[in-house]
């Protein structure tokens, strides 16, 4: 299994996203290490199809579906079920997304 967290250093919440991701993986007894990828340039962002920080992918699939671009160095906007904007997905959002991807496999 390939698990990646892509981040841009200028967005401060990626470490909290990583912590949540690791806790959720541990809950599921998934020992696969999370590969951290720092995105530092616009060119790299486009190559990696990086919609913003943080972005989490399992087997190349984004935990949260995104339109085709734009890609770039930015902080990613997430929306909770009740419509709030947040700079990183909540634990519950991540739990549902991970379970959804695992069910597909």
């Amino acid at each position: 299994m390939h698990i990646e967290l892509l981040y841009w250093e200028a967005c401060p919440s990626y470490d909290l996203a990583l912590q949540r991701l690791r806790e959720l993986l541990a809950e599921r007894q998934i020992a696969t290490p999370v590969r951290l990828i720092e995105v530092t340039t616009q060119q790299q962002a486009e190559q990696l199809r990086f919609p913003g920080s943080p972005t989490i992918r399992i087997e190349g699939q984004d935990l949260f579906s995104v339109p085709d671009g734009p890609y770039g160095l930015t902080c990613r906007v997430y929306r909770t079920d009740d419509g709030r904007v947040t700079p990183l997905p909540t634990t519950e959002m991540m739990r549902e997304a991970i379970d959804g991807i695992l069910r597909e496999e």
Partner: protein
Amino acid sequence: MAIALETKLIPFALKGTDEKEYRPENYGGAKVLGVIFSCNHCPYAQAWEGRLIEMQRDYAGRNVQFLLINSNDPAKYPDDSFPKMQRRAQEKGYPFPYLFDETQEVARQYGATRTPEIFLFDERRVLRYHGAPDDNYEDPGAVRQPYLRSAIEALLGGKTPPMTETKPVGCTIKWR
């Protein structure tokens, strides 16, 4: 580096989304004046936006005035362009002026680095609080330390804010 506590307000003149020019000295009657660096595109700014709107409305009758400033380079972040600022101010019903720091000079003078970043001045226009709006960008219901609101209450009561400086949390200002 941000200006230090107890620094006097640095004057500026910036165009608002209503095309009018705004200066802090236009609000001489305000007992508390908040100069707040913000923007459209940043999720941290968006997450706190509703709370800033609510605070401005709550305190409007008590001579508290916020001035929101967007200093981001719209060439790099088109969502922060002046027309997009105008649209956002209208859509969200901003109860405060939303100003465009096109040259980025005001952000540089204040030493602002993040959005949002608060500089709160008292009646004498001395900086009394600098930092984040509160301690939880994710969930307004989970806030434990309402830094800005507490600082406003303290200043209105002639007291020192319980927290005078916190780390600004948010997106970096996008320099040219």
